[in-house]
């Protein structure tokens, strides 16, 4: 597909980082070419070095990193250039957008000023001309109401809109190559589809090349022309999209392609006892400000939700960010104050205070999304896993607790000898296993799984899903599985509730929802997440 000479060519690139444990080689001898106007995707899991390869080209490596090899843009060597010399290329010829649109914009400046500032500096435009150009760019990225947005602050924009602003800024100097580093990972699936369609359309219109860095082969399937698959700092396979998708040569590529979670969950028998039921559950946040609270403004995060969970059942709760699905999970566990009735087995939970809830906590457990934030960094893994025993089995001696922690770790397929180590020494998937062990050590009846697989790579995701299903079968657990990822929900849940703005828009057996969605919103979600 490459037309003529490549405009960016990377040869034998090595990137090394100095760390406490000596040199770590993140990229080992990568060769990569991008032709003019080409759409290239670099695919790999976290730690594969896919971002660091382009960061090296942009001179954006962390201060303890160094790159060797050759990176040429239209014949000019970029590697080893001083920042000032590199600025002739980066931002002008090579533009980049990042994963996190929340933190890439300065919260103190208006959108218009942020787009205009580099225009005035680099192109010497007048204030008025820069503003006109900023407006033009916002129109180019199809920002709704671009005129009004020029004088908005970043916090007034949604994540998708912020990513559009970032793209507009990247396009300001008519770059030859747009590098998009996981541009949609932080966004909802429907927004993700819009942003990628926008990038693809802009590429057509402006004739620039695009390098898309992603962990998601689904995105590659839709847009890319050529694909590089990276693993542990090396390119294991490259070729046209058709080659990679339909005839992958390398086993790793085949594994990535097959990483979609598999299997379906059979519903529990109809006579299974009801474990948890909630009626008209509401959670509201008081948004009113000020000392005297004269005005009241309530945000209904969960707005009258009914829920019935039987023993052995998994209810999948899906929805985009802000739909109230996580808040619902916390409300069921009484981690946030709520109104309405919640019954667990035969007890009403609503009137119970913190102390009265404590004996029930061992039956109601939770696993959170962020495997990096949900483990206390200063405790050993053994202490973390056995902490619940301090509360619910205070008669155990230290040695007995240690033994139970070792058993719990073995049950989630972690080496029990690792229990004296600290969380930061584990990978994301291993940390999520630790979080699961912490919940399971108390032998709960209900586990709320709040996006337990969202922060993980696809292949790791698959193994965690398998582990969770295995635990469920062994201990007759009921799950409340909260996720925005419909593929995982389909594999995990036998019942699905679709939430939007705090309300349930549709609920029913999983296959019924996926095969014949009734609500528009459900249809949109399914369309956006099935990337065929």
């Amino acid at each position, binding site marked *: 597909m490459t037309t003529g000479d490549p405009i960016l060519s990377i040869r034998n690139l090595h990137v090394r980082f100095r760390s406490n444990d000596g040199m770590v080689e993140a990229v080992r001898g990568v060769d990569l070419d991008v032709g003019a106007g080409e759409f290239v995707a670099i695919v790999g899991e976290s730690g594969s070095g896919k971002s660091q390869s382009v960061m090296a080209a942009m001179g954006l490596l962390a201060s303890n990193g160094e790159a060797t090899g050759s990176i040429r843009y239209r014949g000019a060597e970029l590697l080893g250039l001083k920042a000032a010399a590199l600025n002739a290329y980066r931002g002008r010829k090579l533009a980049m957008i990042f994963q996190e649109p929340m933190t890439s914009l300065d919260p103190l400046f208006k959108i218009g000023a942020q787009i205009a500032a580099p225009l005035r500096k680099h192109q010497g435009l007048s204030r008025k001309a820069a503003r006109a150009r900023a407006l033009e760019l916002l129109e180019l990225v199809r920002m709704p109401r671009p005129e009004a947005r020029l004088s908005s602050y970043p916090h007034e924009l949604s994540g998708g809109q912020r990513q559009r602003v970032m793209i507009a800024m990247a396009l300001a100097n008519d770059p030859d190559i747009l590098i998009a580093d996981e541009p949609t990972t932080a966004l909802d699936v429907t927004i993700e589809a819009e942003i990628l369609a926008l990038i693809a359309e802009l590429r057509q219109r402006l004739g620039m090349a695009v390098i898309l860095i992603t962990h998601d082969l689904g995105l590659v399937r839709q847009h890319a022309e050529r694909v590089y698959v990276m693993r542990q700092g090396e390119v294991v396979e490259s070729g046209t999209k058709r080659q990679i998708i339909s005839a992958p040569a390398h086993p790793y590529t085949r594994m990535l392609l097959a990483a979609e979670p598999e299997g379906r969950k059979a519903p529990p028998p109809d006579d299974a006892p009801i474990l948890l039921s909630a009626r008209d559950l509401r959670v509201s946040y008081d948004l009113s400000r000020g000392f005297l609270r004269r005005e009241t403004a309530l945000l209904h995060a969960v707005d009258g939700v009914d829920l019935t969970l039987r023993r052995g059942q998994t209810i999948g709760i899906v929805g985009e960010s802000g739909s109230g699905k996580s808040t619902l999970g916390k409300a069921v566990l009484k981690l946030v104050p709520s109104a309405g009735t919640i019954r667990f087995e035969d007890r009403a939970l609503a009137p119970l205070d913190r102390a009265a809830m404590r004996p029930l906590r061992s039956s109601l457990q939770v696993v959170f999304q962020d495997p990096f934030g949900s483990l206390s960094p200063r405790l050993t893994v053994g202490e973390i896993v056995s902490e619940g025993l301090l509360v*619910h089995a205070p008669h155990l001696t230290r040695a007995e607790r240690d033994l139970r922690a070792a058993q719990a770790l073995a049950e989630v397929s972690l080496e029990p000898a690792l229990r004296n180590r600290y969380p930061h020494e584990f990978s994301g998937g291993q940390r999520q296993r630790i979080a699961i062990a912490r919940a399971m050590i108390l032998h709960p009846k209900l586990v709320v799984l709040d996006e337990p697989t969202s922060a993980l790579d696809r292949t790791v995701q698959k193994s965690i899903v398998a582990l969770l299903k295995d635990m469920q079968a062994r201990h007759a657990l009921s799950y409340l599985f909260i996720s925005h990822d419909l593929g995982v929900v389909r594999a995990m849940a036998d019942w699905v509730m679709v939430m939007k703005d705090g309300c349930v828009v549709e609920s029913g057996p999983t296959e019924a929802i996926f095969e014949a969605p009734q609500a528009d919103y459900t249809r949109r979600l399914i369309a956006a997440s099935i990337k065929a």
Partner: protein
Amino acid sequence: MSDSPLTPLPMIGRSLWQDARNRLMRNRAAVASLIVLGLMALSCIAGPWLTGHPYDRVYPDYVRVPASLESYPKADAIPAAVQRIAARIRATPGDVAVVGESLRLTLTSPRPIDQRLLVYFDRSDQFGTPRITANEEEGRRLALEVPLKRQRFLFGTDANGRDLLTRTLIAGRVSLAIGLLATGVALIIGVLYGAAAGYLGGRIDMLMMRVVDVLYALPFIFFVILLVVFFGRNFILMFLAVGAIEWLDMARIVRGQTLSLKRQEYVLAAEALGVTTGGIIWRHIIPNTLGPVIVYVTLLVPKVILLESFLSFLGLGVQEPMTSWGALISDGARAIQGAWWMLAFPAASLVTTLFALNFLGDGLRDALDPRDR
């Protein structure tokens, strides 16, 4: 970051504390500071027993003698000293000669010399008990051998003739003790109060922090003067007064940390496990606030030492004959024209300690918070 293959790993993990210690040990300035602080503390603790001078012993003959590596009395000062003592004995000295560690001289007088008056030699700080080697002319001429009392004043002496080295070391004891103890008081109150306020939140937080604001509004010096008026000047009072003020900053720092920590999922997970409030604060909140707290502590110790110096300078601090670096510097500043050593040595000790503490604090900040570098 692949999940499945578990490589064999050592049994014992490397905690974040150990990581921080390794980083600290690679910081040369911080390690040097640690060594300096250790030596300073050791010499302040053990030194006063080794200098050979009690800290409150007054040497009337050695008022404001300059710092010197040689021992006193110095050879050129001996004739004058002998002259002075001989005048009291009402005799004329002659043939004064230093032989080894003793002095030989003759005393002559028109009348017989009262031998009891020879005790003046003994009373001086420079000489020992004289021995009469010859008694001629019916007691009008005495040949004496007087041992010399060798004294060393490495830092010189102060305006009362007390050894400045011993006093500087004793002052270091007081200053370091106040620095550490007052900081300890501030640390314990501040961390517990701040963590409780931050974690409990809501109205309790507001109430607790308003109390802090009210205490902030009290003028410190006024507060100390009040305490001194009510309880008299007292060593313990210094800790309490300084600690009672300094915990306010600590409480604010810890509260701020706690507010961000309590939104962490591991705190929520602990709540879901049913861990008590006390358990969460103790096991999850406080250990994770300690990074910034330790850094603040190393900066608080010099602050407290300076505060004590300031109070002593004003005359509100420790009482004579006890002393502190602040009090010594205050004396030294008054004597700067005639006796530079009275200012230089205490000031150098204080500055060295403060430098070391600040470097250490800086090193700790880098070690504990590598992201911010």
